[in-house]
């Protein structure tokens, strides 16, 4: 925040500030009401669709067939969730894949980003300009989808492996910029200098002094990364065929047009009769709810760190 202030030129000459008033003149109550209502409406539109999906997932399948998607269903039912409890093996498998990929991916991201960003944030690192450029140039130019795809499949041979979901997304220049700015602004040079005089090695300084005081920055990157892995479906779309390795978001794509995928992979005892009477539409929506719930519940608590990250990221050095 302090940086953001610096990046804004203080144009007009500031008058010598007199007694500081707490409220520097608000808008009139009428305008306040109008604006509150307008923004409130927009804010509502941002959460309403999710609530609507929850309602649909709790609707009785037959009522849904007659009435269509409705805010106040004529009949509620937990059938969709019951079905997922009984024969949701594919859902469970995908849930596991997503959790595993998110955890491994985030740990690797934090390791790569924090070490790289710390090194290039230190002014006594002679090659810092070269390695800064190595990272930031990737923001300006990229080889594109196809060469990346060929490298993944022909060079690294990672098609249909868990690593195909992790490795392409564990690093990007934006994370490094945020983290480097964080190190440069919050870690005082004096601490590092005094540690050096006490004979600490560069690694010792990094692990024992810099990391502990940089936890808010680490948390920010960790959350960006967690969200990215949790919401990723593109890598799986490109590289994954095996049902065992399909993450949640990609499972949701596969069931968009048919539910066979869930049924055939879930349980061998499901016969065609049962498949025909599947509560398909509500099960789909129930799966969307279950895939979103962790994020929806967690994010109000983490919003602060996100905002911090966004604010730091938009500041130039």
């Amino acid at each position, binding site marked *: 925040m302090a940086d953001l202030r610096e990046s804004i030129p203080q144009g007009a000459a500031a008058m010598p500030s007199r007694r500081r008033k707490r409220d520097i003149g608000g808008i009139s109550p009428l305008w306040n009401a109008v604006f509150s209502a307008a923004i409130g409406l927009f804010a509502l539109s941002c959460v309403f669709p999710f609530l609507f999906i929850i309602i649909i997932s709790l609707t009785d399948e037959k009522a849904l067939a007659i009435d*269509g998607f409705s805010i106040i269903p004529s009949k509620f039912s937990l059938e969709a969730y019951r079905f997922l409890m009984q024969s949701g093996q594919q859902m469970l498998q995908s849930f596991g894949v997503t959790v595993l990929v998110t955890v491994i991916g985030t740990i690797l991201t934090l390791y790569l980003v924090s070490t790289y960003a710390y090194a290039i944030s230190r002014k006594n690192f002679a090659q810092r300009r070269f390695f800064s450029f*190595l990272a930031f140039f990737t923001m300006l130019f*990229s*080889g594109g989808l196809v*060469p990346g795809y060929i*490298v993944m499949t022909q060079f690294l041979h990672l098609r249909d492996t868990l690593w195909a979901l992790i490795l392409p997304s564990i690093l990007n220049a934006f994370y490094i910029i945020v983290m480097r700015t964080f190190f440069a602004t919050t870690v005082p040079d004096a601490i590092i200098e005094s540690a050096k005089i006490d004979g600490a090695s560069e690694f010792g300084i990094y692990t024992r002094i810099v990391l502990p005081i940089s936890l808010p920055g680490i948390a920010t990157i960790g959350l960006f990364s967690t969200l990215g892995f949790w919401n990723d479906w593109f890598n799986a779309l490109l590289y994954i065929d095996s049902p065992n390795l399909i993450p949640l978001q990609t499972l949701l794509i596969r069931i968009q047009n048919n539910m066979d995928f869930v049924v055939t992979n879930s349980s061998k005892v499901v016969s065609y009769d049962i498949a025909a009477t599947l509560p398909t539409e509500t099960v789909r*929506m129930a799966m969307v709810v279950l895939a979103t719930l962790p994020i929806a519940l967690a994010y109000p608590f983490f919003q602060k760190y996100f905002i911090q990250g966004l604010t730091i990221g938009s500041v130039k050095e």
Partner: protein
Amino acid sequence: MPGILKSLLKNKAFLLMVLPGAAWFIIFAYLPMFGTIIAFKDFRIHPGGFFKSVYESDWVGFKNFEFLFSTDDAYIITRNTILYNVGLIALGLVLAVTLAVVMNELLNKRLAKMYQTAMFMPYFLSWVIISYFVFSFLNVEKGVFNQILAYFGADPVSWYNETKYWPYFLILLGLWKSAGYGSVVYLAAIAGIDKSLYEAAMIDGASKWQQIKSITLPQLKPLMIILTVLNLGGIFRSDFGLFYQVTRDSGALYPVTNVIDTFVYRGLTIMGDMGMSTAAGLYQSFVGLILVLTANWAVRKIEKDYAVF
């Protein structure tokens, strides 16, 4: 030579720190950049692996580009990509700044905080999830829109087959998803404006509107310029999920939903035309690079402090 060696040795702790990240950049960013030369080749997969495949494929010069630009596709995807991005960047800027300024003025700060939390929600959801949201409104038989039409006695619309509505849908959804995210940065900047400026203005009898026009907006200008320059650099890139998932990859909608990213993806996965898809990707990256350098150069000309680099 010994000088460089000595410097490397002296910095070996830092070099070990950047090593894993640098290796990642080389494999996942610079190797694909090298791979773009297959845009000038007739790419064939060789059992000998990546380098062998690239090396053994025959040079064809600009054939892939000629093929790309000889069809209508190149024009349509370029037009769609640019128009959607211009719309999203311009309207997104106006929306984000307006929301930030107005939210900052709301008298009930608790309410403003709550609104902010709600508006941030779509940013945290994937386009796959949002495509289901959209589906609940646009589904032909059960969707909300057709229910409303039926209520007024109108015929149902097959939304996923009607191109004329989608430019509006896509722009609205793009704005909707990023409004909360966009306004946060400006809100933080407004919070950082020197309060004495407003006090001085009030002593001079300036109204709230005059204060916003003469203090808040000019103070936000550098940030607006920086973020817009960065966005302009991405004018040749699109949010793949918005154009592919939300439209449910509906073929009938391609004329208004096909952008460079979806074109390259389909070229790779459906047609398997590696050479032409790479050419399209290189065209995208190359023009994008020139645009961002030009935008930055132009800004630097006007006001040096506002340039991004």
